[in-house]
């Protein structure tokens, strides 16, 4: 991937879902590829069960925030947040939404849903919704045609970040990789 890569991704969820964790993984993956990265987070009172949103930018940017209708991609960990953050997506942008229901995004044809809550229960890791959604997006990024999307990093690059981050905490690492793969495979099905 060249230095001219420029992508803006909005990650939206509620406090406790691990929005910041996913943002961190993407950011570390960008650093490993030698790309400039800029993210913006929600802290403090809003984190207490309220809406949490991260702005993630890779490439040459001065501003840490994404403007409405400018995001290339959207990771939504709670489907109710589409009402709040759906309009950040640019025309033709992609979205991956944790949802058990039919999606109601009109602006784009490249939105897809994954029932991450259910998958998380299935793998007995209820707090892994964030990684499942990311895994699903990474699977879509691997596709060239059809439902494929443009994402600057791959599944193996995210796994590498997890391995480095968790180091010797084996059970945590294994559970995280399992969640990531559950999301990844959900797309293949």
């Amino acid at each position, binding site marked *: 991937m060249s230095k001219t890569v420029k992508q803006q991704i909005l990650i939206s969820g509620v406090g406790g879902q691990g929005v910041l964790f996913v943002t961190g993984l993407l950011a570390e993956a960008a650093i490993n590829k030698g790309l*400039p*990265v800029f*993210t913006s987070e929600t802290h*403090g009172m809003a984190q*207490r*069960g*309220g809406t949490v949103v991260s702005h993630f930018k890779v490439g040459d940017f001065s501003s*840490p925030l994404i403007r409405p209708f400018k995001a290339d991609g959207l990771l939504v960990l709670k489907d109710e947040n589409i*009402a709040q953050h759906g309009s950040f997506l640019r025309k033709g942008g992609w979205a991956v939404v944790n949802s058990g229901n039919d999606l109601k995004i009109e602006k784009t044809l490249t939105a897809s849903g994954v029932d991450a809550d259910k998958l998380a229960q299935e793998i007995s890791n209820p707090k892994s919704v964030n990684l499942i959604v990311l895994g699903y997006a990474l699977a879509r990024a691997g596709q060239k045609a059809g439902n494929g999307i443009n994402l600057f990093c791959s599944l193996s690059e995210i796994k590498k970040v997890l391995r480095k981050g968790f180091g010797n905490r084996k059970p945590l690492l294994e559970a995280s990789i399992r969640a990531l793969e559950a999301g990844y495979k959900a797309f293949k099905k």
Partner: protein
Amino acid sequence: MSKRRLLLGNEAIARGLIESGCTIATSYPGTPASEILAAVAYFQNEESLSMHTQWAVNEKIAFEIAYAGCQTGLRAAVSMKQVGLNVASDPLMSAAYMGINGGFVLISADDPGPHSSQTEQDSRLMAMFAKIPVLDPDSPRQAKELMRVAYEISELFKTPVMVRPTTRVCHSRQDISLGPIPKNKRQAKFEKNPARWAATPKFRLQLHRELEEKLAAIAKYRQTAPKKLNRKAKSDKAIIASGVAAAHTKDILKELKLWSKIPFYQVIQPFPLHSKFIEHIIKSHEDVLVIEETMGVIEMQLADRYRVKGKLSNTVPRVGELGPEKIQEIVSEFIGLRSEAFTIKTAPGRRPTLCPGCPHRASFFAIKKAAPRGIYTSDIGCYTLGLNLGAVDTVLCMGAAISQAAGFYHAYKTEKKRPDIVATIGDSTFFHAGVPALIDAVVQKVGFVLVILDNRTTAMTGNQPTPATGSGACGESTETVDIESLVRGCGVKFIRESNPYELTEFIALLKEAVRYSRKNGPAVVISRYPCVLHRARQGEAGEYIPVEVSETCDGCGYCIKHFECPALIYHENAEEKHVRIDPILCTSCGVCLNVCPKGAFVEKKSAAGSKE
């Protein structure tokens, strides 16, 4: 190339301090500044540095400790959020006059929005008020760089220097190169000079004169002069911006293809604004737009009301954060481009709420039971969210729960019907500003109940220690101050300590406290149970009582309204009138067993044992 690391703005600030040879760092936690000191401690441990890093009991004390450190010739720093600076404003005003010996940097983080604050106040105006220079970084990377610059100015001109990041700088992450850390440690050496360090009013006049001379010189200091970022651009119009607003503006000018056309100046040092820059702007441009957060600090120093547009002229909104979409509208309008609305109306997000299993929720529920028609004064912290349960009527500022309770008591003193008054305050906030207020309440025999919500940590800002915790910023063990003894020392006669999870007993205790307070003055109840987040981080296990909803539930909604636990799910429009428990969110605290008037919450029999 040196090591690149992903750093949060606050971590970048901390790194900048360490790379500048700062050896005394103090703070009181407050969003968005909290992570600065934690990151100083992190780098201190990582690099095995010999320095003093501490959480102080409040911002005033943090300021004074760091200030004395610089009086010995060391480089010191104090960090806080903007409203914390209100608390520290007393030493700030005086320190500006006295000047410094070593290097002194004050970091005051503003919160336009506000995202997590009581006000949108602009610390740069506070710097102007105190007559000290202030620097305004646009990104984590620049924030780190400005720490070095701040110490240079501080030592060159013998003045405290403020650096004012905003939330978007503090809580952004960027890849940043780490630099070396100076090896040579300075030695502390306090040179006595009472004429300066203990100046009487007569000498203060002289110091004030010196201060004005310093400011005039700083307004000529070249390193921090505003920069024209697009040197070739020429126009009658010009745009000036500082802080993160400058970063947004830069991207927008490029995208609108105005970069080569409209001169764009970034101000690094909003006060004192460089005198030559002021002259240059007024001479060279007919029409000038100033974009800054949150007040017109640069704008008011460009004293030409005809050419200069900004907050004072109502061109730029005076209220709220200047998001990039807002700036795009303002810039388009100023240039005369087709004005398009870029701001979108979005649905409101979820309101913040106390965590499932939070001991505060149990305390608030009990307070409403014990004093159903009372006045509930509260304070700054997670427990402000007691609002959602209808158990918080007032929140003013740190420590005011107690003094406002006193005010309400005195206001109603001569009335026939006097309401019960229950104040809530967190442990850290009690230490911060509650103690003097409690002494006052004892002296005036104020009839009220004070519930100290002792969850053993400063929870809202990320679980920093309190004076009762017994550990310091670097994880070292410290002496502790016992809250009960402190309350006793303030002269309170009624003091009880209890666990709010034992809801029935806790309500009974509060009722006793309320009865006592009606005749005898202040009653204090220490509600003691550790924060759930803190427990999770420490890997502490607790007692788990799994709960289920029995058939008795008729969907009356009482628990939803009065207990407001996020783990309780109830849709009014659903066909089935029944409350459900979200298994992901529920912490099995068991408090809800005593909440339902119909007893619909029951202990789950099968699933005894522990939960991960």
